């Protein structure tokens, strides 16, 4: 691994100049600085755990998808032993991309340049004309495999890191695991990705969508005003700033930079708002309003896979949106449908850096593997209509972020700061079972500020 001490930018600017931890302000320069970006690639994207996909994408031996860890292209492949391997998609011979397709099945990956061949686990098989020993004799075959990343599968999600000796995946999740398990590890068969992810590129720095993913609930009220106008969140266009539907709940944040907004579904969405849970048992509540993506039939599985406290949370105030540091948005929501009902939409987004001024938005859409086909169909349609490329909700985000990016180019604009000063402070609600920092009430800046503190921590650690 690389070893570099804390950094100072070439004009003498330090991380503390950019992130003012007394004022809770971040200089807009961070969004438009090539030098800082290179440090981020080394200190964050080459160091921490990154989301690459889901194991349902590559069910068979030899199946692979090609994905990105920062700007490093990798092959995510299932080997003969069933294990998932993540290897750098760069030929150790002369640097050609080994796998030129984006997905497929191949027992052997043969580089098209000179023909060096590799197994799905990245190991080197050999070069053509074996007797001529075209890989020479200075290095053994063991040394000539594709560079391998460390892999962890969590709830079927494929994570990888180049930090072989670094924190375990559990350490990376920390107390967020208790909440994320309620989304990813709640049923016997788990989630299924409903198709390859949607992908599109936005002209903005990766941190603009990523800091929002750290539970920026507040923007919903104004940027996603059309949701209120559609009447789906209770309230009307005229009253949105008075009763602020969906803005109240419990935001939870973690030292690692992850966060989740736990919201009472019945409070958030008008279609459920006349439900009365008074005097109902947990199971009755779950049956009346199962969390997004869950059917009545799957409720017994919740009890089997989760603790009673976790089930209680799912029944009363489930985690619905949030983020995983550094670049993942989690959305397990009820989204409006044309028929007035809701099937739920389960989506994860990875915001993959593409240089200081570009990000690739990768939208993964899920359903529970054991839910009926018709429900999968409905959830797919609901997710596509509300999130990602053409999503009615996220169109507005995709148009906003590039405008922040363009602003960050200006000499004066760069010196402006992003402000995270609406702070609630940690306050554990009575009877709250989960860990982390809790911010009950109106959604504020705490979780996003935690995101920047996590960023600061990684960026100031030795690379």
């Amino acid at each position: 691994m690389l070893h570099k001490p804390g950094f100072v930018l070439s004009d003498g600017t330090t991380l503390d100049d950019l992130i003012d931890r007394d004022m809770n302000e971040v200089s807009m320069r961070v969004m438009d600085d090539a030098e800082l970006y290179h440090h981020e690639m080394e200190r964050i994207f080459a160091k921490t755990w990154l989301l690459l996909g889901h194991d349902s994408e590559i069910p068979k031996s030899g199946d692979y998808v090609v994905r990105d860890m920062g700007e490093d292209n990798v092959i995510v492949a299932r080997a003969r032993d069933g294990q998932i391997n993540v290897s750098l998609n760069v030929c150790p011979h002369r640097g050609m991309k080994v796998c030129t397709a984006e997905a497929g099945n191949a027992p052997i990956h043969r580089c098209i340049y000179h023909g060096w061949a590799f197994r799905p686990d990245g190991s080197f098989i050999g070069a053509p004309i074996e007797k001529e020993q075209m890989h020479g004799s200075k290095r053994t075959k063991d040394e000539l495999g594709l560079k391998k990343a460390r892999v962890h599968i969590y709830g079927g999600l494929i994570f990888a890191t180049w930090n072989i000796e670094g924190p375990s995946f559990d350490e990376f999740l920390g107390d967020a695991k208790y909440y994320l398990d309620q989304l990813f590890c709640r049923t016997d068969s788990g989630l299924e990705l409903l198709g390859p992810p949607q992908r599109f590129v936005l002209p903005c720095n990766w941190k603009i969508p990523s800091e929002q993913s750290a539970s920026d609930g507040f923007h919903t009220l104004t940027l996603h005003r059309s949701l209120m106008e559609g009447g789906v969140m209770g309230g009307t266009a005229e009253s949105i700033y008075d009763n602020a539907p969906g803005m109240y709940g419990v935001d939870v944040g973690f030292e690692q930079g992850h966060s989740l907004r736990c919201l009472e579904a019945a409070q958030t969405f008008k279609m459920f708002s006349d439900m009365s849970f008074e005097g109902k048992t947990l199971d009755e509540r779950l049956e009346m309003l199962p969390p997004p993506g869950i059917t009545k039939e799957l409720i017994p599985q919740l009890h089997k896979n989760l603790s009673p406290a976790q089930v209680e949370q799912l029944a009363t105030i489930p985690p619905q949106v949030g983020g995983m540091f550094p670049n993942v948005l989690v959305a397990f929501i009820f989204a409006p449908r044309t028929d007035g009902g809701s099937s739920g939409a389960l989506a994860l987004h990875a915001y993959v850096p593409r240089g200081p001024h570009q990000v690739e938005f990768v939208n993964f859409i899920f359903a529970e593997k054991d839910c009926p086909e018709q429900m999968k169909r409905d959830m797919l349609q609901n997710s596509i209509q509300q999130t990602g490329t053409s999503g009615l909700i996220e169109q507005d985000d995709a148009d906003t972020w590039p405008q922040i990016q363009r602003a960050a180019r200006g000499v004066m604009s760069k010196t402006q700061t992003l402000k995270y000063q609406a702070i609630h402070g940690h306050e554990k609600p009575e009877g709250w079972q989960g860990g982390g920092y809790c911010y009950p009430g109106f959604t504020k800046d705490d979780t996003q500020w935690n995101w920047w503190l996590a960023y600061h921590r990684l960026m100031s650690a030795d690379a």
Partner: protein
Amino acid sequence: MIDRSTASADQSAIVRGLVSKVRVPLGSEIYNRILETLYDEAAALDERRFDDWVAMLAEDLVYTAPIRLTRNGVNKDRDVMRTMMHFDDTYESLLLRTGRLTKSAWAEDPPSRTRRFVTNVRVGELDAPEEYEVISYLYVERSRLSVPENEQTSGERRDVWRNVGGVYKLARREIILDQSTLSMANLAIFL
């Protein structure tokens, strides 16, 4: 069971060109009327006359845009993935979209200036009476705000147009975009 894995190639038949065996020749009355309709549709969308556009849609419309995935070898032509889409709409959901555009839809307020170029139109007769298979190429230039660089997209549209009392209505559209990673920041416009 639908195979949704990313690694598996799309199992639906590879479609190339017209499925219909009965060609509607270029320059014929029907061909000309359909071509006019496509031009009118492009103008309605470019001019953001969404009520006029909706009036051109059949109520049983299915409107989709599958994703593309780069494949090699034996599967090199199976690069359309219909398990995932950029658009997955019906007449009702398109009404929801056009309805939103009259309210606080910041993605298109202020609106983009767009120019849709529709070419390479091929028409065939379908079994259902008065229904025509219409394939066209689409190229879109989109100017957003004061940004001097336009966003573009290109693709093929596989449509079914239905003659309803002398007026052609769109009954099916599949938009096959050329990019596997879209360069357009959002699809807040119709294709």
